[in-house]
Structure formats: C-alpha cells, structure tokens
C-alpha cells in the first residue's frame, strides 16, 4: 500500500490569531484517532509558525539562511500527515474528512503527494 504525504497549506495572515478552536481540536483528534485505529495514519503534526522557522538555501555553491516569517508567501505549510492508503483516491477521501472538521472561515489547501517507493 503506497504512502502519501499531505502538506497542509494555510494562509498564516488570515488564520485565527488564537489558533484552532477547542471544538476543532476535538473533531480533529477524533478523526486522527479513527485514522490511526484504521491503520491508515502513520504520522501527523502541526508545525510552529514560520516566524520560528529558517530557510536554508544552497545556490551557486553557497549556503544562505533566511529566518522567518516568510511574509512573501501567501500560503505556508502549517502541518503534514503521512498516510498509508490503498490508492490515491482513499488518501484524498481522508483528506476531505480532515478538511471538513474545520469551520467555514478557514482557507486551507492540502496537497496530497505519493511518497516514491513508499
């Protein structure tokens, strides 16, 4: 069964400052538990804000580091999950369920990509 990496892209500018609501966290927790029990979820986590991140670049044979926040990008990766599913359709279906746990004011795009040789 192939593995898929879901990169969860959020708009840091417009996400609620106080973070996800307790109700959202509860719904998401229940879904993650369901996915773990179903043997689908291998790993998932949210990421700290980009203000705490650093971009390390290799270009022209030189290393350069840029500290966050990365204000030039509208959407940044706010979390990820690795699922093991029968096929991409199944991974996408679980992704839809993840998105539906959110309130309507959220704007999130999840990119589902197969891990090569997964």
């Amino acid at each position, binding site marked *: *069964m192939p593995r898929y990496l879901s990169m969860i892209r959020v708009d840091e500018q417009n996400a609620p400052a106080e973070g996800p609501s307790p109700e959202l966290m509860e719904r998401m927790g229940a879904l993650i538990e369901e996915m773990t029990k*179903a*043997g689908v979820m291998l790993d998932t986590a949210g990421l700290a804000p980009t203000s705490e991140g650093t971009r390390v670049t290799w270009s022209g044979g030189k290393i350069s580091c840029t500290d966050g926040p990365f204000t030039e990008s509208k959407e940044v990766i706010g979390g990820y999950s690795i699922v*093991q599913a*029968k096929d991409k*359709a*199944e991974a996408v*279906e679980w992704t839809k369920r993840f998105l539906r746990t959110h309130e309507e004011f959220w704007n999130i795009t999840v990119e589902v990509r197969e891990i090569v040789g997964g």
Partner: protein
Amino acid sequence: MAGTVETVFRIESARIIAGVARIVRDVGLAEELAQDALVTALERWPESGVPDNPGAWLMATAKHRAIDLVRRKETYARKLAEVGRALEDVSPPDPADLARTAEDIDDDLLRLIFTACHPVLPTRARVALTLRLLGGLTTEEIARAFLVPEPTVAQRIVRAKRTLAQADVPFEVPYGDDRTARLSSVLEVIYLIFNEGYSATTGDDLVRPALCEDALRLARVLAGLLPQEPEVHGLAALLEFQSSRIAARTGPGGEPVLLADQNRTKWNRPLIRRGADALQRAGHGPYSLQAAIAACHARAIRYEDTDWTAIAALYGRLMALAPSPVVELNRAVAVAMAEGPAAGLKLVEALAEEPALKDYHLLPSVRGDLLERLGRHAEARAEFVRAAALTRNARERALLLERSSG
C-alpha cells in the same frame, strides 16, 4: 462519482458490515445489506451530491434495511405463532442503534473479526472471509493474491458464510479461556495472510506486498481494538518490522536478496519506529518474541552489527514456548552466527530426520550454507541442488541453483 462512492465504501465497508451484522446476526446477510446500501448510494449521490458524512449515510441506509428486514421477519414469526408455531428467536432492534458511540462500533468490528476467524471454518475459508469482510478485498483480488481461480475463492466464501449461519455461530466477542483460544486463531489468520505475501509459496513473485499491507493494516486495526492484549501488539510489531524490509528483499530483477546483502538504507525507518513502539506494548508470547528478534535485525545498522547472541537466546525462549522444527532451524542459524558454523551444523544435523522438514527447502539450504562456510564445498553444492528441487518459488530456485554451481 462512482469512484468516490467506491472509495468511501472501501473505507467504511467493514464497519458497515459489522454494524449490520449486530442487527441481523448473520455476516453473509450483513454483507448483502451493505452492498445494497452501496448500490443505493451509486444511484442517489450523482443527483443529490455526496453527503457531508458519507460513511454515516451508508451506515444508516444499511441499518434501516436491516431493521426493516428484522421487522418483516418478526411479523412473519408472529403470524406463524398465531397458527400455533414456535416464535422465531429474533430480538427487536434497539432504537438507539442509529446513534451509537465509537466504542460500540469498535465492539461490532471485533465481533466481526472473531466471527470471520471462527474455528468452525477451515483455515483457508477464515483467510478468505477475513480479507473479504475486513480487508474489503474483492473476490477477484483475493484470487489473484493466492493464485487460485476466482470461482474457487467465491465458493470458499459462500460456503464459509453458510457454515457460520448453519452452525449458528453467535456474533460476539468471546470471554475467558475461549477468548484466548479464539484470539490465537485471529492472530494466526492475519499472520498467514502476511506470510503468503512475504514469502510467496508458489509463483514467480517472491513478495506480494499488497497482501503484506492488508495483513499489516488488519494487525493495526486489531491492536487499536484490543489495546490490552500484549500478543496483538507483538504481532503488530512483528509485521511492522517485517514490512519495513520489503523494498530491500528483492533486487531489480525480482530476485531474492539475502538478509546479509540487503541495502539497509532501503529499510523503511517509519515502519521500524512503529514496530519499536508496538514492541514496547508487546508481551512474552510467540509473536512478541519473534518481534523482538526482528527488532534485533532492525537495530543493526550493518549486518556485522547484528547481535546474534541475543537472537539465539530469543529463539531458545521461542523453542521453550512454542517448539517447532522451523524455529529450531532458525535458532541453528543464529547459533552458527554467534558461535561459528560447526555449532550451528550440529543443531541442523539433529533436525535431519525431522519428518516435518522432509520437504522444507530451507533445511538443505541452511545446511549447504554452513557446509560452505566450513569449507566442505562439494557437500554444500549437493545441499543447494536438493534445496532447489524442493522450493516451489521460481526466484528462490534460481538463487539456489546459482549457489550450487559454486
């Protein structure tokens, strides 16, 4: 649209069948009702759109049908009673059925697993039924995985459902001593499915990874349902570790790659980590011990780092707990690595007359390997030829013949 319906159904089918079986008390009938719900979804969703919670929709639809069916049976039974016949033993459905907690759903799933693996069924039927009802595999997929004709599998499943109905097997999770015995049947079925994929006994492919993944998923589901059973975690750990090596076990041409020669960077680290986590919760039973052995291999960054002394000791404990000639053969290999080929060969020689290993290709294969290491090349070659004649797997035969030609 059909794609979405089928995907949702594949994710949900085991839970739907389990939930419905609790009402109708018949897994065969439950599966039909679940299929009916799928057909209804295929008809309706293209017009109405996919509901927000498609799994719950399918479950509710299937359960409504089940309750209707039970009510019709009840009415029928009442009419029978009116004309003086015995009332059928059908308990009325609980109205709270449609709003049930996750724990109840877990109970239903467990009941389904224990029923599909019931000892009243022959082993092959348990395997087929488990893959069908819990793994969500089609008859065609099961047939392909086991290299048997599709009608054979279909027959096996039909007969298994009939046997369960006729034997009046209760849809329940057993308790007490019965539970221990039945649980070992469940674990055995999952392990059999995994092994069929991991060391395909016949055919041209050495590994059928899809079957391994199905078994691994079943083991994970079972570990989630029975968190207090150490052996379930032992089996889950074992399968995570074994699965982590699949990519390294075959070469580019599909030929087997021995443990010593495997590219360990191809071992799947996240699965190893999951295996180690599951092992923490495992116990001291046969699967847990095998998982501990697999963990020793996983911990060795290079083959030379393998702790063979620990592995030999673990095989010793396994022999004490669940003695078998195959385990003793594995112990011999570990002893040979820890103490030298002569010590291993002594243990292998003791197995020479073992009837259970008469046609087991790994006995001459291991013997050949040890003789080779002792410099007894002519004898080693003869053993490899014998081993090649015994294996039914084409890839393995090629490897053994290559070794026999020195």
